[in-house]
């Protein structure tokens, strides 16, 4: 077949295509008119006219504008057209002539000639799509209106109407969920705000209490010291009197002694036993390092099955009895540090009622103070976190969410940690790090290490849903988990508006295309 004939035939084919399209639309109108109310009929009729006139006026340029988005049509109106990247110019005759003139694909929106081109399918009845040129006439139906396959190799049925309806229905459902979700969210945000206010109030109240308590404790302490000193003085005096003839420098010694013991005390309150823990760890570490680990593993004397497992484990990282057991680190326990302050070590009891009362008051107040301080610390710690733009995640602080998948239970505690549990074995998937993706993702990192891989981490992606629940956990890359969590907190008003706009625009397309869902 020579070139010009091939071109003619192609043009004919494309014309046929455009005519059959019009026919199809026409049939649709007829079908619709049967169920139409009269007033809408008039509106549609006028639309129909405009549609026809539009198509007939652009019919001559249909071939050349194949694959061009409606908003871009003007770009191709002139006789000489620039490649969009400015590299070159081409004539109107070269537009969609199945030869790539612009490396960026400007001149071949409707063919596969340029590797970087884009093909626009109108997809009447559904959403328009911009395809990579590689998908034009490749024998695979990509556009629901079938417009990407026009060389006659395959027949693509128009599925836009059905597909569009499915999409719209899905979208509608989604919007419904969003609407309800947005309401729940608003409530939760309101409640969170109140809770924060409450917590803050409590905090400032506590701080005031702390302040006055501190004063009280200070006074009581002073009083106690005073009593002690007075007592001491009294004793000294008595002694002095009793031992008047004895040596003079004794009291000096005592003084020294008491001051040195104070120094010791203050040290004890600080870091005194830390170095020894460090030392212990270091020892342990060195000891373990000295043990034959996997690297210098001795395979002699293993049972044959053990040897098989051991060698297999090099590839898989699975454990065998001959490898170091992975120890899941015990959860750190914040409780238990609340030591009850020991009673004072005064051995010389005083029978003085006043002194006892002061001591008891002092002890009570100290306990109260430390309780308050603890509460302040935990509130401060909590309030330090970033709870989102509207503090909407405030209630997540004290919650955990679980889901069971196969043999594992996954547990996510926002602002704290995430884990995977299999029976009694707990694997840390990560410690709370931060929100990502403008509060759309929660990131937990630095979990338990992986054999031959990274430390475990998990990303929890949030979805809008009416209930807060963990729905799905995957491990797309070794030890890098991705979880989905639905929650009303993620039902954002902005997104709802976007979805509504999208639905609206789909209906508009519909109307232009002549479909109706009334």
């Amino acid at each position: 077949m020579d070139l010009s004939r091939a071109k003619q035939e192609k043009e004919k084919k494309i014309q046929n295509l455009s005519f059959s399209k019009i026919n199809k639309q026409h049939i649709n109108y007829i079908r619709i008119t049967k169920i139409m109310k009269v007033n809408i009929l008039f509106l549609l009729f006028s639309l129909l006219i405009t549609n026809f006139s539009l198509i007939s006026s652009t019919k001559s340029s249909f071939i050349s504008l194949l694959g061009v988005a409606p908003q871009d049509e003007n770009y191709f109106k002139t006789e000489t057209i620039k490649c969009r990247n400015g590299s070159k110019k081409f004539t109107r005759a070269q537009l969609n002539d199945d030869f790539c003139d612009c490396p960026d694909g400007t001149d071949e929106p409707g063919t596969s000639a340029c590797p970087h081109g884009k093909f626009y399918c109108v997809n009447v009845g559904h959403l328009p799509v911009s395809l990579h040129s590689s998908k034009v006439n490749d024998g695979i139906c990509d556009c629901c209106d079938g417009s990407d396959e026009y060389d006659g190799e395959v027949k693509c049925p128009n599925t836009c109407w059905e597909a569009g309806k499915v999409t719209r229905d899905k979208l509608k459902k989604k919007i419904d969920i969003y609407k309800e979700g947005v309401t729940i969210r608003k409530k939760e945000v309101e409640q969170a705000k109140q809770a924060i206010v409450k917590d803050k109030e409590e905090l400032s109240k506590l701080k005031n209490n702390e302040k006055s308590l501190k004063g009280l404790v200070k006074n009581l302490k002073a009083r106690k010291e005073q009593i002690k000193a007075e007592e001491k003085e009294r004793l000294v005096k008595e002694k002095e009197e009793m031992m008047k003839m004895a040596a003079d420098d004794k009291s000096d010694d005592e003084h020294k002694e008491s001051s040195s013991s104070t120094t010791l005390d203050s040290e004890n309150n600080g870091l005194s036993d830390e170095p020894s823990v460090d030392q212990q760890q270091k020892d342990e570490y060195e000891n373990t390092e000295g043990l034959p680990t996997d690297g210098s593993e001795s395979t002699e004397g293993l049972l044959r099955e053990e040897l098989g497992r051991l060698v297999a484990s090099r590839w898989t990282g699975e454990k065998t009895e001959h490898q170091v057991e992975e120890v899941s680190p015990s959860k750190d326990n914040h409780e238990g540090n609340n030591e009850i302050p020991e009673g004072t070590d005064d051995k010389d009891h005083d029978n003085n009622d006043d002194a006892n009362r002061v001591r008891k008051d002092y002890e009570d107040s100290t306990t109260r103070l430390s309780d308050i301080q603890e509460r302040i610390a935990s509130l401060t710690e909590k309030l330090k976190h970033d709870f989102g733009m509207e503090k909407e995640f405030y209630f997540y602080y004290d919650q955990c969410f679980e889901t069971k998948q196969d043999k594992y239970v996954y547990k996510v505690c926002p602002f704290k940690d995430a884990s995977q549990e299999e029976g009694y074995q707990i694997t840390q998937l990560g410690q709370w790090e931060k929100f990502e993706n403008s509060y759309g993702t929660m990131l937990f990192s630095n979990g338990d290490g992986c054999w031959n891989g990274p430390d475990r981490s998990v990303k929890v992606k949030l979805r809008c849903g009416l209930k807060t629940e963990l729905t799905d956990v995957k491990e797309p890359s070794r030890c890098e988990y991705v979880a989905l969590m639905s929650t009303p907190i993620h039902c954002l008003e902005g997104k709802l508006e976007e979805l509504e706009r999208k639905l609206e625009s789909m209906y508009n397309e519909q109307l232009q295309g002549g479909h109706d869902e009334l």
Partner: protein
Amino acid sequence: MKPLAPFILSLLFLTSQTVLSFKREEFRNCHQTPFCKRARSRYPGACTLTPHSISISNGDLTATLLSKTDEQIRPLILSLSVYQDGILRLKIDEDYNHPDPPAPKRRFQVPDVVLPEFESNKLWLQRLSTETVDGESSPSTVVYLSDGYDAVLRHDPFEIYIRDKKSGNQKLISLNSHQLFDFEQLRVKQEKQDSDNNEDSGSDDNWEERFRSHTDTRPYGPQSISFDVSFYNAEFVSGIPEHATSLALKPTRGPGVEKDSEPYRLFNLDVFEYLNESPFGLYGSIPLMISHGKEGRSAGFFWLNAAEMQIDVLGDGWDAEYGIELVKQKSIDTFWMSEAGIVDAFFFVGPGPKDVVKQYTSVTGRPSMPQLFSIAYHQCRWNYRDEEDVENVDAKFDEHDIPYDVLWLDIEHTDGKRYFTWDPVLFPNPEEMQKKLAAKGRHMVTIVDPHIKRDDSFRVHKEATEKGYYVRDASGKDFDGWCWPGSSSYLDMVNPEIRSWWGDKFSYENYVGSTPSLYIWNDMNEPSVFNGPEVSMPRDALHHGDIEHRELHNAYGYYFHMATSNGLLKRGVGNDRPFVLSRAFFPGSQRYGSVWTGDNTADWDHLRVSVPMILTLGLSGISFSGADVGGFFGNPEPELLVRWYQLGAFYPFFRAHAHQDTKRREPWLFGEKNTRLIREAIHVRYMLLPYFYTLFREANTTGIPVMRPLWMEFPSDEITFSNDEAFMVGSSLLVQGIYTERAKYASVYLPGKELWYDIRTGAAYKGGKTHKLEAKEESVPAFQRAGTIIPRKDRLRRSSTQMVNDPYTLVIALNSSQAAEGELYIDDGKSYEFLQGAYIHRRFVFANGKLTSINLAPSSSSKSQFSSKSILERIILLGYSPGPKNALIEPANQKTEVELGPLMLQGGRGSSVVTIRKPAVQVSDDWTIKIL
């Protein structure tokens, strides 16, 4: 206790660091291998054999080799045969007719490797002549080999060599010139002689050997064979894959070589994290060595033997210490040692490197013609987790407009590592999954390994047990080893009946869930046995016909590959070309599919060594090979990954693969820029598919590999001899890898006298020079040789399937006389119709300003024809001065425009090269296009 957690984690990390290493101590070195140790301690001149009763029998020269001393148990029988194209075959085996002591069994001769067609090309010897060569005291028997070559059997000392009459009867290649030949003969252990061991039976060493926790029993005593082979006037030797070493083999013994240096080992092993630059044996073995010297002279030597082999390349002056000068002519000497088997050796006279490969593949077979899809891009990972993962990865390729043809599933897709099954949870609908891929013209490959799970509910195991199809251990029970499924047994594929039974397992009925778009991957077929000696099968395990495993070890994977490939052939009713990737290989593997270089590592050294490894495989007949793009172990930096794609796009087999512990690394995961770079690298491969396919056809008909050392195309250019960083794709493209991080420059040697054109920019570079080029992130340096024509298909598609009807571009690079030529081969890319002549084969010749398309296909019978709808959409002329405006197409008598256009559409480079626009001629037709 809080601080303990990070401490334990760091400890685990340390542990895993030490896990990540090659386990040298698990593998035997030569010193720990008795036959190797013994052979290496022999000295030149030790051989006392001489040929007797020389005669012609059955068209061969035959003789009896007798020792001058009395130590021989029974005579040896020697035969020399001559085949077409100057191929000499030497066999030496025991005299099985000798009555006392009789040989306790026949030694193993590797069956099913030498082609029957080759055997039928034997030239029946008519006469022998005896002459005394100048300066020698003993006579020699001379046999005509081919035009210009004689094969000579020297009697005393015994030696076999080929002499080149054109060079004044200089030796070309010889065996036993240093009299290192030794042949340990089969014996039977005498029952408990205890204290009065005679010297022969020696220590227990001879009957039993311990290595680590394994004991190897040797019921026939030591049975090794060793000899020296010399290559004359050679500058270097190459071949004997598989080792992660340079293309030109470095000496392993002699002056300047470390005393404890190991020979090159040929023993198929599953080596965990193998090392770069090591003579250590890897997954496959081909005992073929090719020598090359000045004036482009090549010769080859091939020893068909499947037992463990160790080969020393002896450095110049290695024999000086022995004080005997046995060989006067300059040579590279090599020393070959094998644990068992017979001498069945082939000598190839060349004269060029391509001739040697042709000769070698005339013996072991030409590479099979692959399906078109299989030479495109493959996406693999251990493991694509489930059907959803598969669907997502597939969709992402489309989303990012990156073509790929095959998605691979590793071991985790099976139900408990029972091959031919699917994990019911992860892959509940395998057929539907494959059909979805097939709807986009894509294929799937699943893994099928030779270890069979010992599970009575597993049909394959049950049948194999009942039929006695497993390899047996030394005690005669089914061998039970450990592999992925746990306790496993191994099918005895040396038996044709078992191979046929195995082949049937691939039928659609037997392999439930398989569809016509599914092909196969054979891994672990060395065989890998996790709890076996050196991670393999015990040498005293027994095969069909009481063959000891030691005798055929290196061929085990080959028979498995063969059985799988033949199974797919059967599945496709003989008209669907099988695709089977194998890790283990042996001479002849090229007939059954492709191989890859196994579990490499994501580092720059492994990127670099992939080139000599693939080149060596190509020289050894295995043209269709590649390395895991990105590196199997470890996480490549994006730059390394991109460079690997850019190089890997030119590997004959182009597949990305990764270990399950690595981070995901599909092409779009490294930012927009890297996605673009990887897309472009893959796209270049797709553009060049017509060229690659034509080269695969050339390999299929001649054995000449797709990817070639520079010296194969420029045999007398000595600068190329040590170059294994650059390579040729066919005769027209030169590719230079970039093997360092953040490289600023790339040094590229361009051989020959003609110009070379950068395939992206069209910039011209002089030949015969080393150019220091700026390293660009867009690509590795690649050049088209002036005087060549490369066919391309420039349109990007989602897979090669959609490219079938796409138009062609011809890139013509003119030489200094403004001429060029090239070829294009097209067939249906799938069936065997091409064997009946259903193909298009064109030669394009450009001369005197005119391009002519000439038919190379024989005018085929009307019965079987192949037609193509494709036209020519663009002709690019490099080295043509701009000016002409038109070209005339004949016979259509039509004019078409000539303009300036881009050389490559991707990357959007400016218009700079002379382009004939839309000639629109049918690619299958005869036509001329004249520039006006």
